[in-house]
């Protein structure tokens, strides 16, 4: 089999500037057919622009891209016939009802009204939107909107689906629902290109990940390879008694042979580079020393840590990821 038929997306040297800001500066991608491919990066890294180039919405200033064998510039119409796009802003009409949105798109894709209506009903049912079908999308929750958006993307089964940050801004329950949907789509054989700011999401869904920063791909590989390159995550501990933090830090740094960070929370501290055995051992040491532990968790490397490892640079996402790890810790 030639590379032509095994790759859903092949892009080389894609560049795009808007005015003086360079959104994408030389992105190469090779996405195998039938896979879920994650583009991971912070806001402003060039994820959305890359997706928009591949979905024929933006013309690249330089470079080439073939999607399902068709050139995105010269043969854009053929590309549009085989893809579907779920944009970062939900790509549905807020001033129509959920059902009308699906009928509208069904008709634009070539169904007659009756068939479009039947297809809309099937999808509303599959995506648990039957009750909301007659309401204006304006009043939908973020999760419902996203589900409708994805339903709209599979009115006609696409060969390739773009999902631009599908879970940004969703609550954890909606996020899990959406992950299930993405897994089902992937199981159905659709190639999916997914962009995300969250390593966990890429880890859960993607077969392969490209990490993108400042418009460039800075690392590529399976989630396992990527995490291995970063090292393991951090052990986060919250003590019952904040006064014992200095003792706890001493014990942790001894058992884990790592630098211990004290957190803004006076009872919390963390140590990077622990695996599960070491973490268990360290918690045991704390308990033997009579230091009460309120909660502890062994976190995955966060996106921030991946970036730190890959670029030696804190990302501009610092605050956002800190909030995320704090929630993770609370959840644990």
């Amino acid at each position, binding site marked *: 089999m030639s590379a032509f038929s095994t790759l859903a997306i092949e892009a080389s040297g894609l560049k795009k500037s*808007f005015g003086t800001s360079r959104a994408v500066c030389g992105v190469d991608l090779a996405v195998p057919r039938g896979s879920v491919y994650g583009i991971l990066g912070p806001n402003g890294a060039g994820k959305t622009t890359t997706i*928009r180039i591949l*979905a*024929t*919405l*933006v*013309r690249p200033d330089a470079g080439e891209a073939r999607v399902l064998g068709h050139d995105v510039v010269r043969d854009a*119409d053929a590309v*549009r*016939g085989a*893809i*579907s*796009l779920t*944009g*970062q*802003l*939900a*790509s*549905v*009409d*807020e*001033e*129509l*009802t959920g059902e*009308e949105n699906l009928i*509208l*798109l069904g*008709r*634009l*894709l*070539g*169904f007659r009204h009756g*068939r479009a209506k039947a*297809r809309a009903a*099937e*999808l509303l*049912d*599959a*995506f*648990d939107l039957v009750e909301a079908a007659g309401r*204006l999308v304006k009043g939908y929750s973020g999760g419902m909107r996203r589900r409708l958006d994805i*339903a*709209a993307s*599979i*009115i*006609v*089964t696409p060969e390739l689906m773009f999902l631009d940050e599908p879970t940004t801004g969703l609550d954890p329950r909606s996020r899990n*629902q959406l992950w*299930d*949907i993405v*897994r*089902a*789509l992937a*199981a*159905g054989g*659709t190639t999916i290109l997914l962009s995300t700011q969250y390593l966990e999401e890429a880890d859960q869904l993607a077969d392969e990940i490209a990490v993108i920063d400042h418009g460039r791909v800075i690392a590529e590989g399976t989630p396992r390879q990527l995490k291995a390159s970063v090292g393991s995550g951090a052990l986060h501990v919250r003590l019952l008694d904040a006064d014992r933090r200095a003792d706890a830090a001493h014990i942790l740094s001894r058992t884990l042979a790592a630098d211990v960070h004290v957190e803004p929370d006076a009872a919390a501290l963390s140590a990077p580079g622990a695996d599960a055995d070491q973490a268990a051992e360290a918690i045991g040491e704390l308990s033997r020393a009579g230091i009460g532990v309120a909660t502890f968790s062994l976190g995955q490397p966060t996106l921030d840590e991946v970036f730190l490892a890959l670029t030696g640079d804190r990302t501009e996402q610092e605050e956002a990821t800190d909030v995320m790890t704090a929630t993770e810790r609370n959840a644990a």
Partner: protein
Amino acid sequence: MSTATIQIETRHDPEDAVRKALAAGTPPARAGALSTVLTFGWRGMLKIKHVPEQLLDVTLTPVLIVFLFTYMFGGAIAGSTGEYLQYLLPGMLVMSLLFSTVYSGVGLNTDATNGVVDRFRSLPIPRPSPLIGAVLGDSVRYLVGASVIVGVGMALGYRPEAGLVGIVMAVALVVAFAFGLSWFFAAVGLLMRAPRAVSAAGSMALFPLVFLSNVFVEPETLPGWLEAFVDVSPISHLASAARALMAGTVPGLELTVSLGTAALLTAIFAPLTTYLYHRN
């Protein structure tokens, strides 16, 4: 002895449902160009259905103006209110529809600030379809506006000499002109930042142009320099042509200028709007 029973809730399995829905999505033949245009027109109708208030603006204002001008100024301008209404009404038809055209720009601007345009642009459909459909949908709005203004006029005593035929021809002409002007505002709508800015700019441009025409008064009563301006205004030509059609006389130059202006606006702004819509 008690037995613990474990109930496993049989629930709607989302993964399974999605997989089934995915498998059922066999592609139909691509939609034809006309069908996509009509579908976008249908979308415009749905929006009027959900927010009928959007029609109030463009129908109520001209109706108020008809009342005000007829009863306040009619006697002073034309000697009697009935006489003035006979002169004013075709012009009000023009004014009402021209103001409605701004909404083409407002609608497109609203779309552009929304993610839905990305969806439309990624569909395998002819590039101008969303725009032609939107402008055609707006033409339905113009017909509603025209019916209201003519209905109110007739209720107040307006009588077109050419009867129903005259009305239909005049309305058709004004709708054609509005179609052309819609393209101008559609382009403006895609260039401006916010829907509100589009409607403000549109009213600001149209108000003086409509007043500086023969919609309200005979140009002969104006100072020479203003009369010269009013005489060349396409809005004057359009109002004169509508008056002639409703009065049963044959408009010559006025009709040509009106239709020519509409064609010119469409020729320039339809491609420009399509370009702006699909630009990065």
